[in-house]
């Protein structure tokens, strides 16, 4: 007997839903959602033509994933190009990668309940900063290629040189060059490509920056110091992409004068995963900290004066700075950055140096053998990659290697490259030597074994001397360290995380299982098509399923995050206009209520942001929209609109809004962040959208990983599909077409080539986590997805109706209903009692909850999104906590407790705070930590008290604090 998966995924059963519906006065979930969603956008019936199969059970889906896995073939990859096989220490795989305490956590916006992953990220930042020799590293980037693009943009912001030129190393990774080209063009940067290893400093053109790959894609190591000096002399910045493992043996970019270092930490124990996810990195010299994109963890103090970690400089992020933001990057790759940081913790500096030395020794052994076998090598100095000059024979030799189970990189007909990594064995080298027919015979002699690292570039500086990198050598110690950190944190395995606009739903174990299978985890992103047919089938299916549920025709899974999906969608609109000679269509209308990332993305797509006013309900002011369309008529490129709105309301006029934009020749971008409120009930492509991004880490169950990974697919109607992101190394250029808009989702069987510029280093982005979303749709089926939406909308409306008398609910749409989230207005409470939204959020910690989204989209409010996965008991526990907190605030107002000393302003309460020293507060200790009796048997103890935000930003420190800080 098998239980339908939807009843495992959806937290509320029929009886619970009955109770909730009664509170709202509706007969059924369908009646409720249909009353909330405007009639004009109700989805058409797909019926028989659906491409989504009938739901399968968990067991069946595991078996199907196993079949797909079996269609992939894992060869020994020696392709290199930024992706290397690596050994994930089993203690890290089991205790981090496959541990919900790490992967179901959210971005650490509430630092008091996120100290574990913040410490883990500080470890990562320390590894990156020390290996690159720079002052400050951020908490990771989406991948290496996008990190290089961000490095270019940072150089332009920070440089005093007015030139629009950026110099690119000809020996950069090919996928990086391709990203640089498409991203530079959109923002008016001119690229000049030079063979930097042989460029004389005087031949360097005037430029705001120069980008050096170190070592180069060909494996060559050249000394970049004279070029860096020359770039600086001209007022430009030097951006260096460096291999972290090589840096354990090579002089660091920082010590050579680089301003910015970028790259990937993938080979620090993170599987290649057919392209991702991995943690890219970026580090900068002193003085550029405030230019860093993405997230940055820093050290501060809590209310008791103890050291505590937090996200620093958040005011500079795109959600606040909008079109003035330094970047549109919102997220990091936290889970993967933590793994890479822990790889360094486990191996320590000596272990890393030993791994690098062995990799280099194997590369030298291979070089020696190949030379003796008559091969000519392109470069004398290398770390792990050899470039072989094999005129006319590259493909034949690659085929011969393939026949023995080895993948090498065919640079062109005359050139091959081979990369050695941590997993390469003597046996591998012998097999490769045999395959290349490089066995010396006759008069061939072995030359003396020569060191391959240039003498002047040998690393002289220490790294990772902090105790954390020199303590956890035994597996017991490592396991306990990981457990200690994860115990500090509040993730979905403890309780509800009702973060509005984040959709913290279940990440089911069956969905997660396939991610670490070698057939999904062990593939290089540029592996040959024949080796990845299982992946390509899964990707094709997921593309068609997502197209059908959104009413679009074609989908690209390439973007590594929602922000990158936005950018890809806007670049598609740009490409479309330009293909029609509409080069002057560059204005992007964005409602004032939109998420700040929209504006930041529009700028990066070369568009000019014009803000459209919203009415007092947060809906687009249609009169102002008409005015703005009129003002910019022939320059109108697009409108970006979120549906339902960022205020959690189904905007009634959306069909008219889309029509007005279309009539003026503009395109409509529908931000899919809130798709969980309409899935199955309305389709973006049907009601007027031309293109959207989705967040698989919200609606489609990819876990948030504590702040990444994410996947932000971009879905478009047919006319924009040719402009979706392509990739030169994609195993298959054609993508399936679903006839999304005419009949609501039947496969037409046709295909389309996505020919826009790439937005990720890998053709299918973060491929290895796509099985999660695939499994979710496969187990839910169309009807299950619709039921999930209904349950999510029901839960949000139930919270709204239960809390309405205690906190005003700020916005509502048709029939007074909200969508999948509701905004509780705490400003009247603050006016009446002085209790702030922060106080309530931190007090929720004492009650055993993760706070809802704070002060977004409206300052002084909490946005609550329960999702469909929480059961009624947990939702009621939250409601009761909120009501109890309201009563505590009333007691402050009544003068029972002073405004400066009460359970709210002092929250959260640690064990230390009630146990150590005398207790001198006007409420008792039981009230502090056990305000409701159920907490006595089930209590989450925050590790720190409220963290001082200003102290951390004024005293920016973003690496492991010295040990004396622990005393």
């Amino acid at each position, binding site marked *: 007997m098998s239980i339908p998966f939807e009843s495992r995924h959806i937290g509320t059963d029929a009886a619970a839903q009955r109770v909730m519906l009664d509170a709202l006065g509706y007969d059924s979930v369908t009646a409720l959602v249909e009353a909330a969603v405007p009639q004009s956008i109700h989805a058409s019936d797909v019926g028989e033509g659906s491409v989504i199969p009938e739901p399968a059970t968990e067991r069946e889906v595991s078996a199907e994933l196993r079949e797909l896995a079996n269609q992939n073939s894992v060869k020994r990859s020696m392709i290199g190009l930024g992706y290397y096989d690596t050994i994930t220490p089993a203690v890290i795989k089991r205790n981090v990668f496959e541990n919900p305490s790490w992967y179901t956590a959210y971005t650490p916006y509430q630092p008091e309940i996120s100290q574990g992953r913040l410490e883990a990220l500080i470890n990562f930042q320390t590894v990156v900063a020390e290996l690159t020799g720079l002052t400050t590293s951020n908490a990771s980037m989406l991948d290496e290629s996008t990190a290089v693009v961000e490095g270019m943009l940072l150089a332009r912001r920070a440089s005093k040189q007015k030139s629009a030129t950026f110099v690119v190393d000809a020996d950069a990774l090919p996928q990086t060059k391709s990203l640089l080209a498409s991203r530079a063009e959109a923002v008016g940067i001119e690229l000049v490509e030079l063979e930097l290893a042989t460029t004389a400093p005087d031949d360097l053109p005037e430029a705001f920056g120069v980008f050096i790959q170190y070592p180069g894609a060909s494996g060559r190591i050249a000394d970049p110091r004279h070029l860096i000096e020359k770039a600086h002399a001209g007022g430009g910045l030097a951006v260096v992409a460096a291999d972290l493992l090589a840096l354990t043996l090579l002089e660091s970019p920082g010590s050579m004068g680089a301003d910015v270092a970028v790259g990937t930490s993938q080979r620090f124990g993170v599987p290649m995963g057919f392209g991702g996810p991995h943690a890219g990195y970026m580090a900068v010299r002193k003085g550029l900290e405030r230019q860093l994109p993405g997230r940055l963890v820093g050290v501060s103090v809590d209310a008791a004066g103890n050291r505590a970690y937090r996200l620093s400089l958040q005011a500079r992020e795109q959600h606040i700075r909008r079109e003035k933001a330094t970047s549109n990057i919102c997220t990091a790759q936290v889970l993967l950055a933590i793994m890479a940081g822990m790889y360094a913790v486990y191996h320590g500096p000596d272990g890393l140096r030993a791994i690098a030395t062995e990799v280099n020794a194997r590369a030298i052994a291979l070089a020696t053998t190949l030379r003796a076998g008559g091969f000519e090598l392109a470069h004398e100095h290398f770390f792990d990659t050899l470039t072989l000059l094999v005129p006319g024979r590259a493909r034949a030799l690659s085929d011969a290697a393939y026949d023995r189970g080895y993948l090498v990189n065919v640079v062109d007909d005359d050139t091959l490259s081979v990369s050695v990594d941590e997993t390469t064995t003597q046996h591998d080298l012998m097999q490769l030597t045999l395959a290349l027919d490089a066995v010396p015979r006759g008069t061939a002699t072995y030359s003396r074994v020569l060191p391959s690292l240039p003498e002047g570039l040998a690393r002289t500086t220490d790294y990772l001397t902090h105790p954390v990198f020199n303590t956890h050598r035994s597996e017991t110690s490592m396991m306990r360290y990981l457990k200690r950190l994860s115990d500090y944190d509040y993730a979905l395995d403890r309780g509800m995380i009702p973060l509005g606009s984040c959709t913290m739903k279940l990440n089911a174990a069956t969905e997660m299982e396939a991610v670490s299978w070698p057939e999904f985890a062990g593939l290089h992103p540029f592996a040959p098509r024949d080796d990845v047919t299982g992946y390509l089938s899964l990707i094709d299916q997921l593309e068609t399923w997502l197209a059908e549920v959104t009413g679009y025709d074609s989908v690209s899974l390439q973007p590594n995050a929602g922000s990158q999906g936005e950018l890809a969608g806007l670049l598609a609109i740009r490409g479309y206009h330009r293909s029609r000679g509409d080069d002057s269509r560059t204005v992007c209308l964005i409602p004032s209520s939109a998420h700040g990332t929209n504006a930041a993305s529009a700028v990066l797509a070369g568009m000019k942001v014009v803000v459209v006013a919203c009415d007092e309900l947060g809906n687009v002011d249609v009169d102002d929209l008409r005015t703005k369309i009129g003002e910019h008529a022939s320059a109108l490129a697009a409108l970006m609109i979120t549906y339902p709105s960022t205020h959690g309301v189904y905007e009634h006029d959306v069909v008219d809004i889309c029509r007005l934009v279309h009539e003026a020749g503009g395109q409509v971008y529908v931000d899919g962040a809130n798709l969980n409120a309409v899935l199955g009930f309305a389709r973006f492509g049907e009601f007027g959208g031309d293109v959207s991004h989705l967040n698989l880490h919200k609606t489609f169950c990819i876990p948030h990983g504590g702040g990444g990974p994410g996947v932000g697919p971009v879905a478009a109607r047919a006319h924009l599909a040719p402009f979706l992101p392509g990739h030169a190394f994609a195993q298959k250029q054609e993508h399936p077409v679903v006839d999304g808009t005419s009949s609501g989702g039947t496969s037409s069987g046709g295909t389309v080539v996505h020919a826009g510029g790439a937005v990720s280093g890998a053709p299918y982005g973060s491929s290895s986590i796509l099985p999660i979303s695939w499994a979710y749709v496969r187990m839910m089926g169309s009807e299950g997805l619709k039921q999930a939406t209904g349950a999510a909308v029901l839960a949000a409306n139930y919270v709204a109706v239960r809390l309405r008398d205690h906190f005003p609910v700020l916005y509502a749409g048709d029939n007074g209903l909200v969508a999948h989230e509701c905004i509780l207005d705490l400003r009247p409470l603050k006016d009446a009692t002085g209790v702030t939204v922060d106080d309530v959020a931190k007090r929720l910690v004492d009650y055993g909850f993760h706070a809802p989204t704070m002060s977004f989209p409206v300052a002084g409010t909490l946005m609550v999104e329960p999702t469909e996965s929480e059961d009624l008991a947990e939702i009621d526990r939250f409601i009761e906590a909120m009501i109890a907190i309201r009563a505590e605030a009333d007691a402050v107002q009544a003068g029972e407790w002073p405004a400066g000393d009460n359970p709210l302003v002092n929250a959260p309460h640690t064990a230390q705070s009630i146990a150590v020293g005398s207790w001198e507060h006007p409420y008792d200790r039981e009230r502090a930590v056990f305000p409701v009796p159920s907490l006595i048997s089930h209590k989450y103890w925050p590790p720190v008290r409220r963290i001082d935000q200003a102290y951390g*930003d004024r005293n920016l420190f973003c690496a492991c604090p010295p040990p004396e800080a622990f005393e």
Partner: protein
Amino acid sequence: MTDFDQLRFTAEHEWVRLAPADAEAGTAPSATIGITAYAADKLGDVVFVDLPDAGVEIADGAVVGEIESTKSVGELFAPVNGTVLEKNAAVEDAPELVNSDPYGEGWLIRVEYTELPELLNYADYQALLGDEAESVQ
């Protein structure tokens, strides 16, 4: 105590303290510039200021610096045309001065001005704040 009648104000919530040219000392007319207490309060805890160096020419209305708090990043607009004489290094080291003493130790830059646009007097500025307070309601 701050003598507000000695100050001029802008709609961007900056204050300007004018010092006339001093023929004896041979100095040109200068203006000291900061943000108002209202602006500092709205920003919240100021954590970082980015100010133009001495010698930089500034033009009325242009963005010449940044004032960052834990909540947002405010821009410093040049209220006059001129050349920066000095920036307040003390505020760079201790940005909290902008909150604790916005009209005194929390000053930001001193400028030799060539042209003085029309600025608000204290009463006008108070009236403007009244309007803003109302529009917030």
